[in-house]
């Protein structure tokens, strides 16, 4: 067993752990950062940038979003179901955090709302300009993964400040003294050797349990791979969540940022993208469940599917719609899926049909389609009849879907694809205060223990707050930074 000693141990080097490491080291603490993987950045390496209010970037772009305004918007959205002091601490720190990142050499391409959308579909239309999209190092237009440039700069800064990264070395448990204060961490290096690090503070930043099917079942009731197809980033096994609870951390509800997805979607990306259109969406009884012009709002659709019988939806279009999209481009443009969606569609569709990819089917008649897809045949036929009649009228009596999208299902072959609940990782579970100190269920601080990032992210309420885009990264950065500063400040009490 190897024995080490330092001031602050940060458990995991994702975005929140990097922020905590840099912040603690900047304030004079000696820092050891344990990371299960061999790369830094964690889930943030997939993202594009964080949210902030009152940042230099916003000011330069003449975007007036004050922390107080954002705070109120957030609390309206969550109906004050979440810790106002924690939300306040985050937003009021966020503008300065952008400047802090700029000082590390991170450049921001622009501040954006989530996605542009029509006025009718308000959810995103009135989204705030909070999303600070990172400028890739090579000067190119930012796309997915743009935030890696930020995690790289943060890693470099941490290394300059003397932070010692230990890769492929997961923490295994927290060490407490007799008074219940956390005084160290145990870990296992890549050769399986045990390490014990004593320190004055531990900052847990392990990113939830999105890859732990057992815990997802236990805390959320989903069966991964059956009625849930969420991101499962290797290593996000709930290490921090379990570690904190093992030393008496308090509990908060755990949620997921629900969206929707196909099983093994990366290998069926053209199919997944092609169906995300305002065509005909129904449940297994053939009944529509939302105005399809909202299907780009992944939060809404995911939540809606979650409440359908069997937690499954069905997207259906006909040959005419496909022809229209091939010719004119998609009605709704996905920023995630390939740009050449309908050029690559036929090839992938034929192959997936031949391989028997379960979620999809094709038929010349709606009856046959319903049978193949497992939709109630009479239900689908009568509902589509009604819908086609409304299309002829040009008005959706059921949901007032936008008129231009009222296209009937009439010309075979018909295409159908099941749609399942998807999600990003898990959120919350560990009770913290606005200093990111971990508390017991009685709201007593556990000395020496901080929890940051998604394990501590209890600020959304029931759904991801899409109208303040960049929120998850924003919370990770700022919670990590706050905890790092507080952990270091403890060392130098005057």
């Amino acid at each position, binding site marked *: 067993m190897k024995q080490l000693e330092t001031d602050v141990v940060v458990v995991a080097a994702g975005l929140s752990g990097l922020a905590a490491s840099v912040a603690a080291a900047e304030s004079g603490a000696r820092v050891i950062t344990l990371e*299960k993987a*061999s*790369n830094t950045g964690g889930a943030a390496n997939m993202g594009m940038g964080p949210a902030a209010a009152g940042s230099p970037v916003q000011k330069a772009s003449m975007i007036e979003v004050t922390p107080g305004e954002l705070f109120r918007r957030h609390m309206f959205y969550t109906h004050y179901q979440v810790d106002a002091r924690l939300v306040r601490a985050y937003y009021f720190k966020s503008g300065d955090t952008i400047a802090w990142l700029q000082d590390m050499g991170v450049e921001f391409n622009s501040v954006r709302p989530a996605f542009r959308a029509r006025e009718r579909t308000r959810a995103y239309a009135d989204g705030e300009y909070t999303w600070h999209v990172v400028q*890739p190092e*090579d000067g*190119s237009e930012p796309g997915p993964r743009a935030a890696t*440039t930020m995690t790289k700069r943060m890693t470099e800064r941490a290394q300059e400040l003397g932070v010692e990264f230990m890769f492929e070395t997961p923490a295994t448990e927290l060490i407490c003294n007799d008074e219940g204060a956390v005084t160290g961490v145990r870990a296992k290096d890549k050769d399986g050797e045990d390490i014990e690090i004593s320190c004055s503070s531990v900052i847990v930043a392990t990113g939830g349990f999105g890859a732990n099917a057992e815990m997802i079942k236990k805390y959320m009731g989903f069966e991964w791979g059956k009625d849930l197809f969420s991101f499962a980033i*290797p290593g996000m096994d709930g290490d921090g969540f379990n570690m904190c609870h093992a030393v008496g951390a308090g509990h908060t509800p755990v949620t997921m940022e629900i969206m929707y997805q196909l099983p093994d979607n990366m290998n069926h990306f053209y199919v997944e993208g092609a169906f995300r259109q305002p065509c005909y969406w129904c449940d297994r009884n053939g009944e529509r469940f939302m105005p399809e012009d909202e299907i780009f709002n992944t939060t809404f659709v995911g939540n809606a599917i979650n409440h359908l019988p069997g937690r499954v939806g069905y997207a259906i279009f006909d040959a005419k719609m496909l022809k229209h999209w091939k010719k004119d481009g998609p009605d709704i443009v996905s920023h995630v899926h390939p*740009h050449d969606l309908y050029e690559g569609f036929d090839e992938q569709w034929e192959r997936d049909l031949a391989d028997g990819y379960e979620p999809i089917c094709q038929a010349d008649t709606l009856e046959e389609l319903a049978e193949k897809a497992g939709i109630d045949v009479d239900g689908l036929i009568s509902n589509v009849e009604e819908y086609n009649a409304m299309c002829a009228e040009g008005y959706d009596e059921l949901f007032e879907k936008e008129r231009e999208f009222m296209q009937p299902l009439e010309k075979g072959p018909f295409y159908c694809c099941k749609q399942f609940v998807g999600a990003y990782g898990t959120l919350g579970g560990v009770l913290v205060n606005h200093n990111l100190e971990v508390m017991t269920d009685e709201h007593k601080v556990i000395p020496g223990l901080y929890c940051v990032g998604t394990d501590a992210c209890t600020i959304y309420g029931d759904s991801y707050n899409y109208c303040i885009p960049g929120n998850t990264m924003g919370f990770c950065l700022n919670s990590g930074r706050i905890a790092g500063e507080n952990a270091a400040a403890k060392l130098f009490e005057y």
Partner: protein
Amino acid sequence: MNLTINGQQVEAAEGASVLDAALDAGIFIPHLCKHPDLEAVGGCRLCMVCVDGASEPVCACKTAAREGMVVDSEAPAADRVRRMAMELILATHPTDCTGCVKYGKCELQSMYQYMGVSPMRWRVKSRPVATDDSNPLITHMFTRCIRCGRCVRACRDVRGVGVLDYQHTENGIRIGTDGHVTLEQAGCRFCEACIEVCPTGSIIDVLGSLRDDRSREDNIVPCRSGCPAHIDIPEYLRHVKDGAWDDAVAVVRERVPFPESLGCICTHSCESECKRNGLTAPLSICRLKRAAAVRDTGSWKARVRHEALTGKRVAVVGAGPAGLTAALYLAEKGHMVTVYEANEKVGGQMRYGIPAYRLPDEVVDREMATISEISQGCDESPRIELRCGERIGDPVALLAAHGGAFDAVLVSVGTHAGTRLPMSGADLAGVYLNTDFLKAARQGSPLDASGHVVVLGGGNVAYDCARTAVRLGAASVDVCCLEAEDKMTSTPEERAEGAEEGVVLHDAYAFNSINESEPGSGRVGSVTVQKISRFYFDEDHRAVTELVEGGEVTLPADHVIFAVGQKPEDTAGMGLELTHGPYVSTDAALRTSVEGVWAAGDCVTGTKSVIAAIEQGRIAASSIDEFLGGDGDISEVLTDHPEHSPLLGKVPEGYYDGRVEPASAEGVVRAKTFAPFEAPYTCDEARCEASRCLQCDLRLDLHAPRLWNEY
């Protein structure tokens, strides 16, 4: 040789490439297709550098370092080519990494983090390729492939196997086998080097095959981690393959002092971990150990640890595998050891529990003699004194601190008391306990086993009893147990061999009663059992049985043998803290509640296996040595461990076949004798069986490239 890289003076070895020179000097230059164990090919074009002010960049991996060379990896021309190369890689790589098992450990991810490149200048076109999970052990997810060719070179150049290559398909160039056949059809060795060198998540271990609770090394070589004593199995199987019997035995002996006994009777949990379970049958590891042990000439003996005498004395109470193992290693560390054994001979369960047809006395005698010999070494007198026939009731009194003569005491008394279930008829004449029955048979004064014999229990000991009863001339032998067959703790081999000898199994039966032959006779006449639909342990660890109505069966029985567990005999009076009834309570270093007294083996762990007892003996020896002022290091190097050759070559004939079966007497023949029925492998058989080993450990010899964040 001196050159300048990015303004820094760098020394390089003759023949080194510019890339190696830079990396060795701690200057990071991006690269993907180059791997520490593979020849450079200059394919990925990430390691571009400009040399001596030239405007045309070159691949650093393919450029030899020269004296006085001036290299600039950050020159705009080099940077431009590098970025474009990365953009093109990303343009065909899935944009969403979240479903990938390599996330966080992916070299491509690390590289794009370093370079900050986005593919946005290009038409992004991912190339979906169906996941191929039809092969054992290795899954191909070529949608993620970046065509760096590392797997091709590892398979062809490092291993000499050559089953992977670039293949032209309708959807462009991809990696695969010639003719798109399965890996087995192509002649794959399943050495997994391709997985190890893949920089992305394109070639991966079959999902779910790596356990989170094990280290990387333990996952890659699961047989070694599955062995309680962590014998270096792939290493000794290589020696067996080469016919180097002494070297093989030496490797085994570096961890355990009973190679031949284990080769006869080990419960071989290594075999259930063996990765060949995914192909055909696992390696016959246990038998290969025996094959080497029977041909051992002892050339390793000269290397046995033999430290100077310390003047300390240790008493070992109980001469089973745990006690004798500890005795040997303590003696090697220079301590004088006295072993007390209640029975007339040493061996514990190896002699008095396990039947002679599985482990004859000669083997135990021989291995004991070797222990005495090697521990004495060149000393004038033995370091281990055996005192058989002496039962120690109060081990604490042996300690000097308590008036005795020893500095430390190890209690390793095993579990020699059988368990009689508290059921109707359990005390009738003709009802035996497993331990009494087996011991009597081994001592040459067997208990009467004539007529119909019913054994109650489903473990290996139950089968030892049943098969012993067969050999003693029973008319019929029935084994009844609570567990359904797939849940039974006995090995499938035991059950199959027992069946061949005429043992009839009644699995999933509850024991209702043992009945008198005639009312008032006091003698057993039959056993009533009842079929159960389900058997489990509830939250309080109580056994719960769900009976099948009308499922009662009464079996005729002249003799009934309880084989439902064993426990330690005399621990209650020892003055040691106990746990779970009669078991000795210890800490992880096997210290008991009394300072100076250790305990090890079955009396601590409950009845387990010889190999588990040996490992306990090792732990105890190391811990006692530290207590006596030693360093606790009992490790040994009994043979040379040269570097492994990474080359495997083409598959030999029979590589995908099942196990080689050694000569074995037929059931009807062996049922009449206590002589061992299975012959050790012949030399050829052993070498043939050992050549089936996948040599998973070679994967650990491959080097992991250092990522930018480690420079």
